[in-house]
């Protein structure tokens, strides 16, 4: 099996080049092979953009699940505002329309020196380039007593799916007047505004169905993303319902007692009717096992190509990377994935390179008809991803502007998931 080098590719000219680019699948021997491990937002986007932009590359996507459940918009489901099924997206279009080989298996191990990926079913995939998009894992022993069994009693719901359904069931069956405790994680973590959006949307549900219920946020931090916008909205929409306790008051949650649904802090123990425990995070397990993460628990990458700083030939995108100023969000994962796909295509086929454009855009719900947005552009500076320009909604915006943002957010979800999976 031979892979294209840029020099070999450069020897081809004119008609020969066009023919080479349009070689049919039967001549797959000559094609470069890219394996993408992880079919979340980052992995699926890399696979789609590589397959659609570089015909000289064979793309294989390894993802155990048949359908991906988006974390974004799962807070609307928790509030009873969106059916669970609307969060699910299959891989059929990626296979059918873009010719991606989708393998529904787990990756067992990565061998960067041999350039192979071992799958759980015993088979092995060879690659010229590997992209790993492993998402997040929870840090071991970050919260004493929060083990697999405890997660079934006090869900994290931070990887969307069964955990999200469990939390919704618990919120629905909670008695009016009950206390919902949300344990918010230390930085950095997946989707900085999301714990506070969750508290806001659960409050909107309580207001309609359980008006005497209360929400307590036990934070590992002393401040949080878009704090002024959230606290303004909590006063306007849900006066007296949401209480936020920063780490300076409690010392943060150190242990969990699942039997009594209790959160233990230096400043006292808090007993919940329903608890949502979001632990401290790190790059997904596969990244840890493959030596792609450094001592921080996250994966250092080149900010232009997203190639691992620790394992050449392996690229990483999404929540698992050390993204500099880029937050861990689905939008950033999608934006990084496109830059990564174009960089790999240029490396493997010798095609033109253009400066990458990296962005984050977030729509965040404060109430079902009140959303705010932000936008940030990024560029690589001295080996790090730096924010260039940043704008966020203002506290004093009119309710009409916020209603429009909530409507735009719905349209964004449709377009964004179409961009990734459509």
């Amino acid at each position, binding site marked *: 099996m031979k892979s294209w080098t840029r020099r070999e590719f450069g020897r081809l000219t004119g008609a020969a080049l066009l023919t080479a680019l349009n070689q049919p699948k039967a001549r797959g021997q000559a094609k470069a092979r890219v394996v993408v491990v992880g079919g979340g937002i980052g992995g699926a986007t890399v696979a789609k953009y590589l397959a659609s*932009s570089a015909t000289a590359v064979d793309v294989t996507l390894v993802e155990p699940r048949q359908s991906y459940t988006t974390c974004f918009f799962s807070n609307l489901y928790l509030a009873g505002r969106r059916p669970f099924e609307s969060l699910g997206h299959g891989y059929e279009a990626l296979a059918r329309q873009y010719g991606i080989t989708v393998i529904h298996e787990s990756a067992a191990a990565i061998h960067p020196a041999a350039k192979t990926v071992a799958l759980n079913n015993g088979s092995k995939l060879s690659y010229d380039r590997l992209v790993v998009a492993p998402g997040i894992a929870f840090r071991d022993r970050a919260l004493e007593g929060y083990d697999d069994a405890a997660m079934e009693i006090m869900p994290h719901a931070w990887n969307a799916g069964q955990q999200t359904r469990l939390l919704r069931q618990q919120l629905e069956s909670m008695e009016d007047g009950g206390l919902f405790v949300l344990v918010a994680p230390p930085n950095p973590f997946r989707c900085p505004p999301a714990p506070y959006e969750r508290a806001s949307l659960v409050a909107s549900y309580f207001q309609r169905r359980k008006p005497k219920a209360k929400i307590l946020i036990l934070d590992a931090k002393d401040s949080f993303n878009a704090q002024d916008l959230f606290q303004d909205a909590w006063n306007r929409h849900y006066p007296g319902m949401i209480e936020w306790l920063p780490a300076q008051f409690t010392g943060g949650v150190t242990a969990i007692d699942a039997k009594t649904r209790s959160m233990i802090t230096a400043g006292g123990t808090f007993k919940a009717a329903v608890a949502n425990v979001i632990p401290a995070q790190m790059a997904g397990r596969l990244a840890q096992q493959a030596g792609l993460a450094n001592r921080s628990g996250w994966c250092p990458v080149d900010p232009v190509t997203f190639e691992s700083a620790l394992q050449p030939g392996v690229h990483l995108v999404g929540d698992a990377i050390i993204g500099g100023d880029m937050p861990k969000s689905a939008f950033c994962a999608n934006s990084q994935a496109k830059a990564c796909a174009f960089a790999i295509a240029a490396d493997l086929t010798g095609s033109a390179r253009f400066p990458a454009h990296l962005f984050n855009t977030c729509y965040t719900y404060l109430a079902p008809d009140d959303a705010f947005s932000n936008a940030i552009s990024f560029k690589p500076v001295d080996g790090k991803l730096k924010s260039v320009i940043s704008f966020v909604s203002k506290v004093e915006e009119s309710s009409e502007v916020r209603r429009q943002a909530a409507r735009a957010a719905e349209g964004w979800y449709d377009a964004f998931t179409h961009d990734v999976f459509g």
Partner: protein
Amino acid sequence: MRPVARSAIATGLVLLVSQSGVAAETDQGAQLAATCASCHRLDGGGTGIPSIIGLGEERLTNALLAYRASESSNHIMHVIALSLSDEEIASVARYVAKQGSNPR
């Protein structure tokens, strides 16, 4: 205004390129338009986010220049447009104008 003939030739080329699937590796406009696709459907579908399909190259160019000049109408588009050079705006407008079910 662009000559009709040149526009028609450009349309033909881009259609050929998109069908053969090499657009994004050869065309800066296609790579830039990947950013548009994170919020705007390039097949002309979708609601809630204004469509950018069927607008024509000149309107797209003018819209991006206006977004770049002022934050007032939309801060998201202001940030996007501020990151684009004149050349990049021309190239993405040219590409997007050719997308959708009824490209002009």
